[in-house]
């Protein structure tokens, strides 16, 4: 009997562990921190599992993960320690291999990752929730705890920043 909630939790919530881990990776920018926080979030979710009721488990779990990430960041004040990633220091290496198509794709991926990593946290999270997790505005609003209109404007500004960083305008406009 005592096992039942555990089994239900494993069936209902744990399928979203990859989603949770991905979100934490982007919010915390560190794989070990992400693992610790996701573990903490999963156990917290388990303790509050009865509150889920008929809600959508994925968004519910991601909201907990997101809150744990923010709490963790406040506690650890990580941003002060993060060394800013200077584009001009790192792009040369990628470009020197540009003859190889795979290398181009790699460097494009790297450029995209850098552009997103450079976003302020509130922009980064909506990008991850929308472009990786493919959540609706309403779901994102519930996870982040802001109105749908705010989600829309943050997403819009975030995409334009990424576009500017990638030089997408120059590439696509011709």
């Amino acid at each position: 009997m005592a096992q039942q909630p555990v089994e239900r939790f494993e069936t209902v919530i744990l399928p979203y562990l990859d989603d949770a881990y991905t979100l934490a990776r982007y919010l915390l920018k560190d794989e070990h921190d992400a693992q610790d926080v996701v573990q903490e979030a999963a156990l917290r979710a388990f303790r509050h599992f009865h509150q889920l009721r008929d809600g959508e488990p994925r968004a519910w779990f991601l909201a907990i993960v997101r809150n744990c990430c923010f709490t963790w960041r406040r506690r650890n004040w990580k941003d002060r320690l993060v060394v800013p990633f200077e584009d001009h220091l790192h792009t040369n290496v990628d470009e020197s291999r540009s003859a190889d198509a795979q290398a181009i794709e790699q460097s494009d991926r790297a450029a995209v990752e850098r552009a997103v990593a450079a976003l302020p946290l509130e922009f980064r999270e909506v990008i991850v929730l929308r472009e990786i997790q493919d959540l609706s505005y309403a779901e994102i609003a519930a996870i982040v705890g802001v109105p749908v209109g705010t989600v829309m404007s943050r997403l819009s500004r975030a995409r334009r920043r990424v576009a500017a960083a990638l030089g997408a305008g120059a590439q696509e406009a011709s």
Partner: protein
Amino acid sequence: MRCAECRERLDAYLDGELTPVESEMVRGHVEQCTNCGHEHAVLSATSRRLRDGLMYYEAPDMLRARIVSALSRPAKPADRVVSPWVRWSRLAAAALVIAVASSGLTVAVLHREDTTRAVADDVLASHVRSLMPGHLTDVASNDQHNVKPWFNGRVDLSPPVPRLDSAGFPLLGGRLDYVASRQVAAVIYGRRQHIITVYSWSSPGDDEPQSSLSTQGYHMMRWRSGRVESWVISDLNAGELAQFVALFRRNAA
């Protein structure tokens, strides 16, 4: 529709978040207005590059195992999950200190510790021996309906042989072995390149909760339930082994 109105709806248009009517209006405007059309192309290309370029990370097995193992322990809300093993090794160390330091007192406890230790040595020796070529299984099969009946008449119990393939622990087979001065059933599972052996034999006495110890790079877990003593050993990491044991016990019934 004016350009300003179109611009502020472009993202929602792209994301399919507009009503059909609004969406149609934006589409109409984008097709006619060069500037807004350009803006739309840029946004759409950016979104595509984000989707193609951003990594979707898979949660490491170890994280999954840590969570599963923490869940299957009795709830202790404040617990930080990381290390049942640390606690265990402390316990084991304490037991050892007691065993060494005392000579006459608490004989019963000591006797049990000694017995457990002796069994642990047997289990370790048997498991290591089984890893030598040709010693792993007497009956090699990934079908529990072949493995389970094979033990009939060979040992004095019908060992649990749950199927755990779907959780990534394929059944490899079974064999007879000799542990704690008796014939015992050994059921073998795999995990990547690691081998997990589950020993069981009938053993009178009350149920005893799960306990674990580590030695020479191997982790062991033992418990007694329903007059069956069970030992699990592997060189698999502690977290995944705990996950295995939780699954095994849940599906053994």
